């Protein structure tokens, strides 16, 4: 049996009724988080340009372009919403795959769900299946992180297989049809790291959604593709990884035991800044609150992160708002001064704020040499000579063993969603996310993601 068919059989054997409660819980957390960051991302140029080029409004269909009133075909909605979901790089992460696990899957699944009127349970089921396929497949190609280090962007090159698995489930593809969809994906996969730092990065996520859904629609209509598309000597593994290690057996080992969505699960980003500075933000906000610190009490601040992380985050003089997101010095100053990390600190001229700049002179970032590259230390010296020290092994939210609280998740949700929706609508949408599995028709849900021109003005 070809590997595509092996994966398809395993994928089709996963059912909602067999999922542990944790799988449902974490799926809902990830779905709510992705919806919120997509709404915020829908206002970014990467998304608006894509929507313009597709002239989405001129191709009417059932699927909402999130944060607008436009409904278009599922393929276009998947591409635009998939781009929005990753536009701010604020969506969730996954250690197994090195991919953002939700942004390449959920927008396609939701767009298709709107076309067929699927329920919340069906979407959760499709999402879990997509997540599993994406993460398991990555184990074959991420031996020694080879696929990642080589320069592929796994969110693009692996994400589309997750999208196909999720969409295939929603359309009840047979094993053979789903295998064909995976094989078509093997000829569509793309996304290079050399395009990081441009609008193309989030577009990779949009394309993964569209291409995965497209492959499923084609397979359902009887299109054909190679049965050995993965393992063929000119197939996905050899062409995308080789020369270099891959191990096809790893895809099948311990499939769904436990489900990837449960362990290792996803990491949720609490703050709208680079992930490498986030553990320092946790410490700074905690110490500020615990000790009721005032700026004038502080004479010296020493954030310590692993040198591999500090390499791209020591930016004592950020020159642009984008630069400031990656500056551990700027972010630490903001956390200590404002007690919070929010979008507005990384917009316009916020990075030039004189009081922040003055405070930043007290900050000196230093690399630590701990084995744990997720961990951070923060050392604060006060005017009276007191030295405060705190350590965290990893940022809050980065994995199910160190989760964000419900209140923290809601704070992020509201901060993101209010870029596109009025507050009263956000409350309804957040409540609908908490109750996602009891929703009978996704169209009732997406109605809450529609922005009317009036509502948009109110939000702005």
């Amino acid at each position: 049996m070809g590997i595509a068919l092996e994966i398809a059989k395993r994928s089709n054997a996963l059912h909602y009724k067999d999922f542990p409660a944790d799988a449902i819980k974490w799926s809902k957390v990830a779905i709510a988080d992705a919806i919120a960051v997509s709404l915020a991302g829908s206002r970014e140029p990467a998304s608006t340009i894509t929507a313009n080029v597709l002239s989405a409004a001129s191709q009417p269909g059932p699927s909402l372009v999130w944060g607008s009133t436009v409904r278009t075909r599922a393929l276009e909605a998947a591409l635009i919403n998939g781009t929005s979901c990753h536009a701010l790089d604020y969506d969730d992460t996954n250690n197994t795959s090195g991919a953002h696990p939700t942004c390449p899957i959920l927008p396609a699944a939701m767009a298709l769900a709107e076309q067929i009127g699927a329920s919340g349970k069906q979407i959760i089921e499709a999402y879990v299946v997509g997540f599993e396929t994406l993460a398991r497949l990555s184990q074959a190609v991420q031996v020694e992180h080879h696929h990642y280090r080589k320069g592929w962007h796994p969110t693009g090159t692996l994400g589309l297989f997750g999208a196909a698995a999720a969409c295939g489930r929603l359309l009840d593809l047979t094993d053979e049809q789903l295998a064909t969809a995976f094989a078509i994906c093997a000829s569509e996969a793309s996304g290079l790291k050399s395009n990081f730092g441009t609008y193309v990065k989030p577009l990779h996520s949009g394309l993964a959604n569209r291409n995965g859904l497209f492959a499923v629609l084609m397979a359902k209509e009887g299109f054909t593709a190679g049965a050995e598309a993965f393992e063929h000597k000119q197939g996905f593994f050899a062409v995308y990884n080789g020369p270099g290690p891959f191990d096809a057996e790893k895809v099948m080992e311990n499939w769904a035991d436990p489900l990837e969505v449960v362990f290792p699960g996803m990491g949720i980003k609490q703050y709208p800044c680079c992930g490498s500075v986030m553990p320092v933000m946790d410490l700074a906000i905690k110490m500020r609150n615990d000790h009721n610190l005032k700026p004038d009490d502080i004479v010296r601040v020493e954030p310590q992160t692993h040198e591999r992380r500090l390499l791209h985050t020591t930016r004592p003089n950020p020159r642009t708002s984008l630069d400031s997101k990656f500056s551990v010095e700027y972010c630490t100053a903001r956390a200590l001064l404002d007690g919070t990390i929010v979008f507005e600190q990384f917009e316009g001229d916020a990075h030039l704020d004189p009081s922040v700049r003055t405070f930043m002179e007290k900050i000196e970032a230093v690399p630590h040499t701990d084995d744990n590259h997720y961990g951070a230390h923060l050392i604060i010296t006060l005017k009276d000579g007191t030295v405060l020290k705190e350590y965290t092994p990893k940022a809050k939210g980065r994995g199910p063993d160190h989760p964000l609280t419900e209140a923290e998740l809601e704070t992020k949700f509201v901060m993101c969603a209010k870029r596109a929706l009025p507050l009263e609508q956000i409350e309804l949408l957040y409540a609908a996310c908490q109750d996602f599995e009891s929703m009978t028709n996704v169209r009732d849900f997406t109605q809450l993601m529609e922005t009317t021109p009036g509502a948009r003005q109110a939000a702005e």
Partner: protein
Amino acid sequence: MTIALEFAKRINAMKFEDYPQEAIDWAKVAIIDTLGVTLAGTLEETTKIPFRVMGAGTAPGPSLLWGSAMRTSPLDAALINGVAAHALDFDDCHDTLGGHPSAPLVPCGLALGDDIGFSGRDFIEAFIAGYEMEARMGLGVHMTHYTKGWHPTSSLGIFGAATTCGRLLKLDDEKMAVALALSCSMSSGIKANFGTMTKPLHVGLVNRNGLFAALMAKEGFTASFEAFEHKQGYFEVYNGAGTYDANKILDGWGDPLQILQPGVAIKQYPSCAATHPAADALLMIKNDNNLTADDVTKIESKTYEWRLQHTNRPDPKSALDAKFSVQYVMARALLDGQLKLEHFEGDAFADPKVKDILKRVESTAHDLADDRFSATVTITTKDGRTLEQYIPRARGRGPSVALAPEDVQTKFINCASRVLPGDQAEQLLAAGEALETLGDIRNITKLMETTKANVQAAE
């Protein structure tokens, strides 16, 4: 200057008035040939499936779905017509590209033309620029790129598609560079999917993605100008360290034009090009010696090993499989004395008479690296003769062995009249032959439009 910008500057410097007449003539041959095989390809299930998936006809737009009366968005039309262009694998070839040069350029260019309008001369100008770009990429990345398993028509053709559409959209150098850099992140297509409908899908995707890249660049999308040469860029990731040379792409740009040297290769037979020299050799032996299938006890062929890799199919299981089977192609040529579209349709692959001949066929590889396009066929006859024919290069495969103009026209009419009434096919041929004088490119697509009445007339 970065490589994407270097490409863009060279692309934008190409002008119709600087092209030699020969280049324009060959461009017209290639474009006409592409129109013909695409029209014939619209009848394939391979094309009808994306047609249904896209809900073509329900999404209105300016761009014709060739061989129908339906119009849709340029992106959808580029996809569907692009699949049709390669559905029969009967479209033209190019040595340095290592693939099919025109199928990635013509459907997206004309789909865009239906939207924005331009002259036949503009189209030829942009077509030759796209042709140059994609073919020169082959100079820099082959043969590693080819043997590794990429399908160059797709993985390199996207740069041609983006170039042709970018020129037609009049992108400046920076925006052209963005279109190419964005194409780096959309390039795909692997050979493991050969022999299935996904191979022509590669060409549909490349038309859509190249056009999409150009449209995105025009609207102000950003991409990295170092997308090619970055350590995690196109060259390193798609090829790998030490297996490419960007200077080979840049140096000697347009001198001579790739469309002239090595030039346009037209496929005389509707099967994979790698099977053609063997078919020529076999037909030559058969015709010279008046052989019938019954006279033959053994057929042996020797072709280049890289080409045999994907054409070694001693017992094809489908019509599409048969197109890639050097064994089937020789058996069929021996039986019928020619190779026609019908031989690669329906159950023709399972014809017991061919199956019987296939038992006598043995295809092996030669490994002469400087003899990539040849075939040697040796036939042993019942009466004990051994007849051998060496063909260095299949007829049609390049300007040195060019098909006669009548052969090109005959192929076009055979293909186009599967879809269009005969007089409309003749008019389309005439319009194509005078393409550089055409004021509005939309007159070409108008001649590819069918009504129910004229579809019936064609049937």
